[in-house]
Every structure is written in structure tokens, then in C-alpha cells.
């Protein structure tokens, strides 16, 4: 197998043949000020203009040497299309929305032109641009929010979690189920537009909810999503999810992108034989505050543990030194 970026990532995704070195990728954003300055593109235009979005994603591969390109930097594309008033931020601040259109848990209406809304269109067009540039050479990763995260956006995170706490189970189930079609439509459209893989981010994180909550409310939904969406899916759930790793594998995802709070050796031991593991270099202490030597140590630890695709644990701090991102790539180029 040729050790091209695309081959290394796709083979690792299915636990296939190893190449000359481990693949390096991030299903979530690797954009930082340094990268913006190197390619001359910044926020918010990279959230709003397809060419800018694509070029900034390309920079991660062409300038830094990552094997993946991932153009969706925010978590708000579907939320905006579903009616949230998203503030697209600026160079120093990621997008966010404090507007919760369904905070009374009324029935969600997914617009018929959902995929044509500007926030969806920009991602789909950027993916098509990336396909023309690096199709078959680098792995193109799309990103969707799962129905749990979309519920946070529609009703407010605290409001949503409170309903679970006061055991209003029926309205919680209904909200999640009503949002599933948005996740499915977004994922399918991104594959059609040119994505090789789609990361599904659904923040039922261990810092917020128990494994029991995941099992009751979200595992059946994830099983349905993975059997419905045809292309390869990587799950991203932040935080310490050591206690629910096996359930993520039961959910049917092809891969799991995990954070530093989950020890790499433990993750490999528990589910490494069932799914591709992606991660998990620490963001705050190592990538943001550490040195290239600190980065090197964590990368080698993850490789030795058996993590399949090496990269940051999550979207990186915007002030991450570019040298530390390059250190991930150079550490990986030492091989296995």
C-alpha cells in the first residue's frame, strides 16, 4: 500500500494495513492564529465563504502536513439552518448562539430547504472544492452534530439536562428523535459533496451525563444513525468517557475521536479491536502551553499504545503555537 495521506487514514479507519508511519489527522478543527496567518484566511470569513473555508482546511494538509482536511470549524452549521441566530464570531472567538428556538420543547420543524440554508451550503460547497483539490490524496472529513448536541442548541443545554434530571423522559426522547433527520440529511449531503469520512459530534460527555443516560437516551439513536448513514462515521464525544467506551463500539461507529482524559492504553484495551481510535494529544496543557518535546512524548505514547490515527484531542485553542502542531506531524514521521 502506498503511504499516501488518503491511504494511511482510510486503511487505519478500517484497522487495515499499516504504512510506513502512523496517520496524523484531526476530525475537529486544527485552525489556530498561526495557520490563519500562514494562509492569509481568518475567521469569520472561513465560516461563511466556501472558498475561504476550503483553503483554510487545505492549509492543514499542505502547510502542516496533516493527512486530513476538515473544513467545518464551528459546531453551529446545522443549528443556524434550524433557526438559531448564530454569532459567527471573529479571529479570536468561535461562533456561538444564545438563542434557543425550541426552549419550550415544542415540536421541531426541519425546514424543507435545510440543506440549502447558507450555513449548510457553505460546508457542502467547501467539501466539493476540497474534493477537486485533494480527492484521493488526503482524507476529506465532514462534520455533523448529532441529535443530542442539536437538542442542546435547540432548547439550551441546561434546560435539556434539567428535563432529564426531573425525569421528563418522553419530551427528551421526542426532542432527540425529531432532530435525527437533520443529522442524517447533513451527513448524507456531506458524503455526496465529497467527504470520505464524517465525524458525528454528540456531546453526551462524561463530564455532564452518566453512561446510564447515554444508554437510555442516545445509544439506540446512535445505532439507528450508524445503520442509516451509509458512509464511514467517527464519533466525537468530549471529556472522560472511559465508562462508556464499549457502548460507543456497540453503537456501530467506525471510529472514536477521544480526549486526553481517556488514557490511550485503556481505550485501546477496551475497544481498539472494535473500532478505529483517533486522538488524543492534550490541548490545554500540551498543545497550547507545552513545548514541541511535550507534544512528541504524547504522540509517541499514543502510537505505542496502539491509537490508530494520531492528532489533537479536540478542536485546538486558537492561540496554539504552530510549532506544536508541526511537532505532532514530525513525531509521527518517525514511524512506528
Amino acid at each position: 500500500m502506498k503511504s499516501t495521506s488518503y491511504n494511511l487514514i482510510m486503511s487505519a479507519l478500517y484497522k487495515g494495513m499499516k504504512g510506513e508511519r502512523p496517520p496524523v489527522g484531526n476530525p475537529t478543527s486544527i485552525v489556530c492564529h498561526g495557520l490563519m496567518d500562514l494562509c492569509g484566511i481568518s475567521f469569520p470569513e472561513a465560516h461563511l465563504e466556501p472558498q475561504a473555508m476550503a483553503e483554510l482546511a487545505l492549509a492543514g494538509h499542505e502547510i502542516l502536513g496533516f493527512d486530513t482536511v476538515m473544513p467545518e470549524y464551528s459546531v453551529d452549521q446545522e443549528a443556524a439552518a434550524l433557526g438559531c441566530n448564530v454569532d459567527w464570531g471573529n479571529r479570536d472567538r468561535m461562533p456561538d448562539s444564545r438563542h434557543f428556538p425550541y426552549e419550550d420543547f415544542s415540536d421541531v420543524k426541519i425546514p424543507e430547504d435545510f440543506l440549502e440554508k447558507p450555513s449548510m451550503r457553505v460546508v457542502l460547497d467547501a467539501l466539493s472544492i476540497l474534493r477537486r483539490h485533494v480527492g484521493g490524496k488526503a482524507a476529506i472529513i465532514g462534520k455533523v452534530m448529532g441529535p443530542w448536541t442539536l437538542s442542546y442548541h435547540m432548547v439550551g443545554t441546561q434546560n435539556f439536562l434539567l428535563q432529564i434530571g426531573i425525569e421528563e423522559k418522553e419530551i427528551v426522547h421526542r426532542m432527540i428523535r425529531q432532530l435525527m433527520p437533520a443529522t442524517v440529511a447533513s451527513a448524507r449531503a456531506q458524503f455526496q459533496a465529497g467527504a470520505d469520512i464524517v465525524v458525528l459530534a454528540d456531546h453526551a460527555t462524561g463530564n455532564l451525563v452518566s453512561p446510564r443516560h447515554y444508554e437510555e437516551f442516545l445509544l439506540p439513536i446512535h445505532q439507528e444513525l450508524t445503520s442509516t448513514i451509509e458512509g464511514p462515521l467517527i464519533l466525537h464525544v468530549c471529556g472522560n468517557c472511559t465508562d462508556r467506551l464499549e457502548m460507543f463500539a456497540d453503537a456501530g461507529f467506525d471510529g472514536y475521536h477521544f480526549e486526553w482524559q481517556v488514557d490511550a492504553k485503556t481505550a485501546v484495551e477496551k475497544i481498539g479491536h472494535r473500532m478505529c481510535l483517533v486522538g488524543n494529544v492534550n490541548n490545554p496543557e500540551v498543545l497550547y502551553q507545552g513545548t514541541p518535546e511535550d507534544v512528541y512524548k504524547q504522540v509517541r505514547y499514543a502510537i505505542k499504545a496502539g491509537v490508530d490515527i494520531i492528532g489533537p484531542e479536540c478542536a485546538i485553542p486558537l492561540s496554539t503555537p504552530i510549532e506544536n502542531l508541526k511537532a505532532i506531524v514530525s513525531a509521527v514521521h518517525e514511524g512506528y
Partner: protein
Amino acid sequence: MSELLDTIKEAVVNRKRKEIEGLVSDAIEAGIEPVLIINKGLIEAMDVVGEQFAADDIFVPEMLASALAMKLGLAKVKPLLKTGDQPSLGTVLMGTVRGDMHDIGKNIVNMMLEGAGFTVVDLGVDLTLEKLMEEIENLKPDILGLSALLTITLPEMERAVLEIGEKGLRKNMKIMVGGAPVSKTFAEEIGADGHGEDAAEAVTLAKRLMGK
């Protein structure tokens, strides 16, 4: 009397929001002092909830539901308090740093601090440094609590701690920090006075910073 207080405590711990107001009314009618209802019923209940949360026996949804029950009970009894009955443990100014809109963790800490007897002023989210400094100068809190959920906003937390110090605003004020990406190591490196791993730890820390 202790039986009534125990049922109030149990109602908060077990998230019985529909029963709590009736139970608190019963306790008032039975002549139990409002201060006792608050301290032995509601505050002790939140201590238990905090311990359960720290032990991963319950998670954020259950904590929010208990906090709601406590809030409903407190609203029933607080108007009956006489001035000076329940001195505050201290004033805590809380906020999420600039660029970060997340507030659940902070809101839970607010609830736990209030439940423990602190006066809490919540400045909300996405706080500019200018707003923070202005409010510190106005309110002169005993403690500033800063929260961040996104790793990308950690630089803002670092900057806030540094510049508040440089402006001379830390003489009579302690700074505690917390949030999912915030570790003890990070807190020490940026010069915070303390770090709370979770809401329960935040309350213990706040009491320690107040010398209690």
C-alpha cells in the same frame, strides 16, 4: 422536628420538586426556625448532593433537579428570615471568560455556593476583561470565580488572572478557576488561588479561601 427536617433533606437529595414546598410549609407551621430549615434541611441536603456528584453517583441532570428542589424550598422560607439570621459566608463574583458561552458548570457552582450560604453575583458568559474589572471595583467581592469550558478560551482565563493582578485588584480578593479543560496544573501555572475539579470542590475551596 428532626423528622420534618430529614424529610426536607431527603426531598432535595431525591429531587422531589413537587413535594418540597409542602414539606417546607409543614416545617414552618410546626414552628421550626427558618434558619434551621435552611441549614439543617436545605444546605445539608446540597452537601449530600455535592458528595454524590463528586463520587459520580449522580451527574449534572440530577444535580440540576436537586438544585431546583432546593431553590423552590428556599423561596418558601427565605422571606421569613430576620435580618442577621443568616450572615453570608462571603461574596463570590462568578463568570465565564471571554469568548466562551458555556455556563452550566458555572451555574451549578452558583447554586451550590448559594446553597452553602455564599452571596453569589453571576456576571454571565463571554466576559470582557473590562467588564470583569469594572464589576470587581464596584462589588469588591471576596472571591472571583472564573469558568471556561472550551480549551480555546483558556488563554482568556490566563490573561484575566494576570491583568487583574497587575491592576492591583487581588489584594483583598481570591481567584478560583474551574471548567472541564481547566486542570490544577493549569490553575497553578496561571497563578490562580485555587481550582475546583467540580461544583462540590468549588464550595470546599471557597470556604477554605474564606478561612472557614
